[in-house]
């Protein structure tokens, strides 16, 4: 069973004495002390899983189904919910994030976010917590999404040379996905939790990942390899996997874009499981406990 980051630290591997000392150091008033509370995190144990590679593949010069490979992840923690309007607003107030479309309630996911906005928020949150937050890789996203990941890859067999059929297939799939929910962002938790306790995975807000769009080939032995990587286009995950230019905030349909794009663009961040992270989180818990007592 996955546990939350904080729960785990209560029984954590760090010697208690060292932790208490460290926490006291962190608690001491310093003008440059990081002030931002840690977001609610869910810890993911290392694991192996089957991962459908992102990007476009060809085999023998024809469009091919992206292969599934065995993937292994290290331990990391991920935000339980997507970054909210309220959280993002603190970054804006600190002068570190662009003022966005923030008219809605504080407890709904922040949307109309570009990859650059998300990266900017991650940099600010890292600075203000003293820890290294970043966007997940696509592989990590698929891992934490668990059963909420929807493999949107369509088998490409004998029809793979028919551009008309391919376009119609994709159109129908994306139409069905888009019609599943209305696009109005909902308060955190509206779309429920997955088996890891993550909220709103594949709800109506798609999430940026750090992975770049890649094109690859599958050789005669079925081995995939990358031929080109375009980091101006990032993998976006949600009800379906898609690829968007990094500065896009609102993936609009229309014109040549025949498909139906994500309803909303938002994000959640991950945190690598290292000693600094554990220490800081423990210190936060101690601080919270002390504060509670004084009240």
């Amino acid at each position, binding site marked *: 069973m996955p546990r939350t980051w904080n729960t785990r630290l209560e029984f954590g591997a760090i010697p208690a004495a060292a932790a208490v000392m460290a926490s006291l150091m962190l608690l001491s008033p310093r003008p440059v002390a990081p002030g931002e509370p840690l977001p609610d995190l869910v810890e993911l144990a290392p694991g192996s899983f089957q991962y459908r590679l992102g990007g476009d593949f060809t085999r023998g010069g024809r469009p091919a189904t992206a292969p599934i490979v065995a993937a292994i992840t290290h331990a990391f923690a991920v935000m339980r919910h997507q970054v909210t309007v309220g959280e993002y607003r603190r970054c804006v107030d600190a002068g570190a994030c662009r003022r966005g479309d923030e008219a809605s309630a504080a407890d709904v996911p922040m949307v109309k976010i570009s990859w650059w906005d998300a990266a900017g928020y991650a940099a600010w949150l890292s600075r203000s917590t003293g820890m290294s937050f970043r966007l997940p890789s696509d592989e990590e996203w698929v891992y934490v999404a668990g059963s909420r990941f929807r493999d949107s890859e369509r088998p490409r067999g004998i029809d793979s040379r028919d*551009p*008309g059929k391919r376009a119609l297939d994709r159109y129908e799939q994306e139409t069905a996905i888009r019609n599943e929910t209305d696009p109005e962002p909902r308060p955190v938790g509206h779309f429920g939790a997955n088996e890891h306790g993550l909220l709103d995975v594949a709800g109506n807000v798609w999430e940026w990942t750090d992975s770049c769009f890649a094109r690859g080939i599958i050789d005669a032995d079925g081995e995939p390899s990358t031929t080109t990587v375009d980091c101006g286009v990032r993998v976006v995950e949600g009800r379906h996997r898609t690829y968007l230019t990094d500065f896009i905030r609102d993936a609009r349909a*229309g014109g040549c874009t*025949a498909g139906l794009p994500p309803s909303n663009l938002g994000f959640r961040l991950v945190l690598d499981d290292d000693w600094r992270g554990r220490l800081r989180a423990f210190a936060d818990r101690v601080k919270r406990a002390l504060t509670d007592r004084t009240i």
Partner: protein
Amino acid sequence: MLSRRTAISGGTLAGLAAILAKPAFTEDLMLPRQKIELVAPPFVHPHEQATTQGPKIMEFRLVTEEKEIVIDDDGTKFRSMNFNGSIPGPMMVVHEGDYVELTLVNPATNTMPHNIDFHAATGALGGGDLTLISPGEQVVLRFKATRTGVFVYHCIPGGPMIPWHIASGMSGVMMVLPRDGLKDGAGRSLHYDRVYDIGENDFYVPRDKNGKFKSYASHAEAFFDTLDAMRRLVPTHVVFNGRVGALTGENAMKAKVGETILIVHSQADRDSRVHLIGGHGDYVWETGKFSNPPEINLETWFIRAGSAAAALYTFLEPGIYPYVNHRMIEAVELGATAHFKVEGPWNDDLMVQVKAPAPIQTVETVGATKVH
């Protein structure tokens, strides 16, 4: 039957006045009647393309409606006005020489007078002068369809009400077909398997001081802000069939390879330039009037404000065809995009991807990098 000519040659002025004022014309017009059940665009009621029947009195009924609608995926609310609950109003199809007999209804639930100007009709503001009715009233107008083509109709209640009612959605199309059907420039008959009626509208939704779209409790409250937004001539939305994406996804228009479709496109308020991405206009009546020979093989055709165009096209390849206002800013940013879903076999002779996307070939190109 008394014609105007016999009345003038044989009668006194008083006699003429009596005849013109006399409501006896109805009894004189001994023609068969046909009542048409209208359907909402993009579909069109069943009709003959060429007909062997003689002229008829074609009966239609339009009900005006004032209604708040949602016009985009962001949930933007708009105080619309329309005919028969749809934007555009339904297409009415008749043949040259038929009489159009319209019952226009203004339900008591409405708050304003409405009327109708048929560009296909002659005289009295296209009927606008004879059809102005208050909430709770109805009126019957008859006019003779003397010219062939696709023609806009719209509400024309007077003063600033005219552009406001039109820009709120009160327009549609009447198609007057030649009795022997459509012809190419050489007089050969043209036929369509399906007809789609696409109405384009420019909407002007007022914004608050933060730039957010405003909504209003009533049409009256929306009027001044909306008129102010209209006078700037920069639409907030340019849409096909009443809202962004109305003709996409599950509502994309369907066709098959080998089928010929007639696309009727109207814009009552503003110019447009329509384009079928990946397709053409095989025969296009750009100004919409069938007595003129159609242009052939067009890429983009121009719609003059207050007019409709008709384009005939036979699909040759399957797939998704976006149908846009080729001012792409309007197509993508403001909403003027529809989709055709076309099923059928792909023809490699017309197009093929010879080599799939791959790195640019140079002499230094080395092998690919392993992913896993």
